[in-house]
């Protein structure tokens, strides 16, 4: 079930991942799912503000910024380069 404990919060800059599961109990997380952060979506860590929070992700070509506290609800499988 757990995918090596990788979440959106642990992705490194420039790294891509595919969302594998979402802990959707929190209405704030549901809101993020409406924005397209759902299972199967490929996400790339694009940048972060000073201090590493919030983080900007690329989602199908558009930028979306998340706080660390919300990013950890999204389990991801990192995409290995060359895949």
């Amino acid at each position, binding site marked *: 079930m757990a995918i090596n404990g990788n979440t959106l919060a642990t992705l490194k800059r420039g790294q891509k991942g595919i969302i594998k599961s*979402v802990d*959707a*109990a929190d*209405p*704030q*997380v*549901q*809101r*993020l*799912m*409406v*924005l*397209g952060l*759902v*299972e*199967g*979506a490929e996400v790339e860590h*694009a*940048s*972060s*503000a*000073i*201090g590493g*929070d*919030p983080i*900007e992700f690329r*989602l*199908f*070509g*558009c*930028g*979306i*910024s*998340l*706080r660390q506290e*919300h990013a950890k609800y999204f389990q991801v499988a990192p995409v290995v380069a060359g895949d």
Partner: protein
Amino acid sequence: MTKRSEIRIPTTEIHVAGRLAASIAVVGNPNSGKSTLFNRLTGLKQKIGNYPGVTVEKHVGILKVDDQAIELVDLPGTHSLSAHSLEEHIAVDVIFGRMQGTKKPDGILAVLDATNLYQGLFLVQQLLELRLPTVIALTMTDAADQSGIGIDIEELRKQLGGVPICPVVATSGTGLESLRKAIAGIPDLPPPERIIVWPELSEAARRLAEGAREPIRFAELERLLLDGAIDANRPFLEKLSQDARDRLEAERDSLFGIEPPVARDARIRYAWVREVLAKVQHSAPPFYSWRTRVTAFLNRPIPGTIGLFVVMAIVFQAVFAWATPLMDLIDSAALALGASVTRTFGDGALASLIADGVIAGVGSVVIFLPQILILFLFIILLEDSGYLARAAYLMDRAMRSVGLSGQSIIPMISSFACAVPGIMATRVIPNRRDRIATILAAPFMTCSARLPVYALLIAAFVPATKVGFMNLQGLVLFGLYLFGIVAGILTALLIRKTALRGPKPPFALMLPEFRRPNLQTVLIQLLGRAKVFLYRAGTVIFAVAVIVWSLAYYPRADLLAPQVGQQRSIAAYTLSGEELAAEYQRIDNVAAAAQMEQSWLGRAGRFVEPAFAPLGWDWRVSAAVIAGFPAREVVIAVLGTVYAVGDEADEVTLSSRLKTSTWPDGRPVFTLPMVIGLLIFYACCLQCAATLAVIRRETNSWRWPIFAWTYMTAIGYIGALLAFQLGSN
């Protein structure tokens, strides 16, 4: 939920020649280029109102195609028909025809951003389920080309059940003509075919609809299943049979189980979107434009943050430096106009009402315009270019530590120029609690109207000694700025922990690519802002100005006129030339001071003197402070009048008068502790009718302006009391 149902306001009406053929809702994601497109389509034929009971603006415009007039309603941007924010609720309510004062749309213009088909199609698919005649405007096709996104429009149309798709570039106008024609044809279009992305949901909807009392649409059933029997869905619930109503919860349970419906909805529809994208969108190598380079550079944390400070410094400087000459111009124009009225109509009450009441009152409103226009020009440019979202993203962490969010940074910094546009700029903050906390903190920032009062008092009473490498006067001024910032932040923190306690809002900010703003759109928005300010705030400020005028003008001192005449003839007997003119001026100034002393305002000053005596203020200072409540910069003019140096006194004359002003027993009034107290009072007190009017407008209630005024006055009073009492003993 919002309390929209109780409040009735008349529908906005636009008078147009020709018949109104249809009303079309313009729907799309935030940042999809929807408003730019709306502005391009309707030009100046639009009207900004408010939705009943809320502060969300309602933009309605008229599109003329041949002899047809089509009403376009620009809805707030939304990501889904499952509404989350107030803006989204409004958009969804209008679409479903449950918004009071806005009729159900006859059709939909769906705005789809070619650079963000992923989120766009998620919404468009839901819109098509409404089965209202729909046309899709595919915007930003130029930016998509540059980013290497190729879209097979024919295939997309096929995937979306044959709905007309018009590619446009709103900024340059490419494709607008054919879009206009397509919109004119919307009323004649058949309802779009339904795309079934979620068979189980359709099945459940079909079961619910069996034996319904009235025809019910699929989209309405879908809302019932997804959102349940919430208030907004009551009209749909009433269409169902009693049996179906009882079964609603069971149907929802079997559909979703323990999974939140919104989560399942998002998962299933986005899976469909990904399938469609795989068929219609192909990527080519991106074309490296200035846009990509700038974005890449500003994406890095340190350059990005430095860039933000540079941008803010430029904005701040422009608002101060560019606005000042214009404001001086307006000021002197108002003075000259007032003087010419006095020359033409003499010294009567009517002339004074026109010159000192109406012209000065209107002047005090209009004088804010240069700052407001310049600041809003920048804010609109920053917003339309996509930079505002990035600024909020960069500052989020710092602002969070003081209980606000990143979006509060622009309103707060703007308020150093003037709180009025600063408060108007809080509209970018989606969370209501954050927004009100920011609105309450904003008036503490040292605005440009406080500066002349600070300058006068500091120059007169703070010694210009060196403290280290700084001048004590400069240090005090700096301290006052800092004091405002700290007081504002503490206020925001306090209010977020007490009256506006609540969960931290989710911070999910879409960060659009940088784009070039369109001049026409920028100007239309700027004009809209100016109109809103002049109409809504202007009326209140004007009324208050006239009231203050009458307080200072009445009752007339009947005995004064003969005395003035007598003194003038004595002077004419003994003096001549320039000396005589100076003496005339002195006599007029003394007469004005005597008039002020026995006017309602002077009496009010005497009346409240006991209340302000613990602060060390005499009746003159008290009267000036009372007169300054509508507009703080008035204080200098009133002090000039009561100290008989004329209301156009230069600082040197006035400050020497202040220094020699004494109590009846000979003690000086203006001691250092009293002046420090007065400065603190000034730093806190909300002496600005324009700000109060804008808070009223932006929060849609009198509660917040009354609270802000009381709170800030109380803090100012206590601060001044402490400074005077501790300093004097």
